């Protein structure tokens, strides 16, 4: 059956799938781990001067309260993203006459120039120096050698003088901040984009950091989440309800198929229809049955068992919702198990079954001592597959309960990502589901060993 040969061929054959799985499985898996335990914005290094090159004065955690001591513009080196708190200043490189009538050129803040002429795309070309207001203010405007108020002075210009605007520079505001964390006082500079300034303009907080830090905070947040407990309980309850029912039903279906009745192909077709039906469609299907003016109520009323339509899918009737989800999942996913079991039954030779029958074994005895043991490998595959799928029940729950009254782990993952925009806690939920899947897969692999494995 297998070729005893050592060459490179098999490695070439599996290479594409290995590469694909590395990119779309290994990477996301690692990333999910890092998302759930690594807080990328936990720590902000504070600099001794308003420059990223300067030394670190200390580190502050996200959320620390700070005092603002001062601010300064600093040439923006990166492109602008959608940074929340980013505060910028615009500086112009201008050419014009100074107080002595000489032409000078240098940098001046945009706030000192009234733009008079613009290019078609809005780039300012020419402007006049603004008048300073207030009686004791310096009537002259200083021009600097660099786009910074700390730079050397090039000269001074009078108000209303026309200046040609040669170049623009965007500065990011840096704040000088003072804070105390864990008994240590940190004083230094940090870019405005990481600082949230409060209304009083003298205090604020560290909005986010640049350096990551290991944290269990996301898992804590998950466990403290008010939906966590009900989600775990419902998910496990559904697993316990769905899987055994499904296997019993699937084995019955498979035996019916194996009995080779007339119209067998039609029965097989009907039994395998749900396999191709979307989870959401099944949810809607059972919603249409259990909704207040649905099929179930109509039948009950038709039989005279109730006088008016009963509400089944409401907050007061959680057990009915769980029951409906249970039926929906059994309806939907039994086919896959049935097909795995049928193909397992096909592998059992007719001789073995006939022999058992000839020796007087009844249906139950044949099932217990011949069929089920030989089906073990198929059942193992089906069990693992079904458990993992049962843990991911999601659309059925939303269709039947709206996702609030009855909730499951997969639904909470979706809620955290989609409603709360929290990829970290969502990843924590996902990893929790992964952990349950792994534990149950290992359990099945050990509990339902195939004969070859025991022999080996």
């Amino acid at each position, binding site marked *: 059956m*297998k070729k005893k040969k050592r060459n490179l061929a098999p490695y070439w054959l599996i290479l594409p799938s290995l590469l694909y799985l590395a990119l779309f499985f290994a990477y*996301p898996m690692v990333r999910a781990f890092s998302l759930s335990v690594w807080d990328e914005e936990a720590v902000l290094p504070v600099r001794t001067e308003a420059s990223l090159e300067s030394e670190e004065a200390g580190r502050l955690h996200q959320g620390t309260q700070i005092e603002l001591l001062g601010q300064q513009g600093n040439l923006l080196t990166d492109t602008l993203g959608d940074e929340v708190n980013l505060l910028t200043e615009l500086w112009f490189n201008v050419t014009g006459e100074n107080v002595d009538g000489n032409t000078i050129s240098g940098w001046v803040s945009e706030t000192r120039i009234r733009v008079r002429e613009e290019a078609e795309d809005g780039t300012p070309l020419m402007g006049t120096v603004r008048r300073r207001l207030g009686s004791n203010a310096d009537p002259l405007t200083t021009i600097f050698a660099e786009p910074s108020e700390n730079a050397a002075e090039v000269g001074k210009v009078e108000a209303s003088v026309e200046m040609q605007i040669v170049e623009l520079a965007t500065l990011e505001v840096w704040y000088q901040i003072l804070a105390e964390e864990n008994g240590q006082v940190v004083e230094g500079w940090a870019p405005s984009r990481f600082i949230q300034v409060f209304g009083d303009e003298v205090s604020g907080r560290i909005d986010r950091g640049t350096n990551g830090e290991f944290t269990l905070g996301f898992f804590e947040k998950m466990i403290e989440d008010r939906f966590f407990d009900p989600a775990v309980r419902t998910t496990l309850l559904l697993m316990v309800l769905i899987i055994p029912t499904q296997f019993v*039903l699937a084995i019955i279906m498979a035996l019916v198929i194996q009995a080779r009745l007339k119209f067998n192909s039609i029965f097989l077709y009907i039994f395998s229809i749900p396999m191709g039906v*979307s989870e959401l469609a099944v949810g809607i299907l059972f919603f249409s049955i259990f909704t207040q*003016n649905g099929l179930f109520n*109509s039948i009950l009323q038709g039989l005279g068992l109730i006088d008016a339509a009963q509400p089944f899918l409401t907050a007061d009737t959680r057990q009915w919702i769980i029951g409906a989800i249970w039926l929906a999942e059994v309806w939907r996913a039994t086919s896959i198990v049935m097909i795995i079991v049928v193909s397992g039954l096909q592998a059992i030779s007719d001789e073995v079954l006939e022999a058992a029958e*000839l020796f007087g074994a009844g249906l139950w005895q044949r099932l217990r001592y011949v069929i089920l043991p030989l089906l073990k490998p198929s059942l193992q595959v089906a069990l693992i597959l079904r458990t993992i799928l049962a843990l991911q029940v999601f659309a059925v729950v*939303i269709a039947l309960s709206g996702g609030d009254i009855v909730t499951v782990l997969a639904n909470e993952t979706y809620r955290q990502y989609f409603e709360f925009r929290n990829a970290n806690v969502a990843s924590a*939920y996902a990893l929790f589901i992964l952990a349950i899947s792994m534990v149950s897969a290992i359990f099945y692999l050990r509990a339902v060993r195939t004969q070859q494995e025991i022999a080996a």
Partner: protein
Amino acid sequence: MSDQPLETAVPFDGLAHQQRQLRRQKLNRATTYVIAILLALWILVPIYFIFSMAFTTQEAVRAYPKSVLPLIPFSLDTMRFFLNSDGIIPGLINSIIVAVITLTLSTIIAAPAGYAISRYIFPGRNFFRLSILAVRAFPILVLSIPLAVLFIQVGIFDSIYSLAFMHTALALPTTILVIGSVFASIPYDLEEAAMVFGCTPWQAFRYVVLPLVLPGIAASAVFTFVLSWNEVFAASILTVQNRTLPAQILFSLSNSSEAYQFAGGFFMLIPALIFMFYIRRYLFNMWGQVTK
């Protein structure tokens, strides 16, 4: 279950025993029919009900109590209302594109790997098999969120192609295992015999193995199509504007009328009905004994 009791089974009071056995077999057979019909009804009744809701007037959808037998007025009203709703037709097109890309990509990538694990013994084979199994155990949710974060960073978020890549990753482990088991079901002796008669390994594969495994590979492609078509979670996380059909319906579920929901539910079901009917032949090829 054989229809004629064999001679060896007949004890010395032969005839009476044989008759008893025959009677018991007939009874068993009747019971099996009853069970088969009950099971078929369990599957068909909900489908019939949602069908009758999808093809009726909107008043009939709201009516209570509903007539259970086919007395509900037939009308294209509900279905037309659903198809004309926002985003349904584009969602349908997206769903089909994603599913077709997924099944093509995953079959092309998985077939060689399936062949390798069933035909060669090589160092690392067991490790590969185990990793495939382990990878199969990874719930889709674990992948969706980091991939969404990645796709946003790379700038291919909200694209049906990135969703197809994701679905391929989901389908790949199963496809490898299924194709592997399909190859394993063809004895290597056949290939060897072909080679003894002068075929090259490629020819042995092309003319002996391939025709035997094609139905199985087709069935696995069908599994993949189903997986992609049915997939709701990743589709609703990875797409915003370019939703697939299930994602679109899920998104508008809470603020839509029952007419929309029922028609949508049945519409998502139609491909399954046609599709299982169409691949019936492949299923029968795969399990040849069943239809005998």
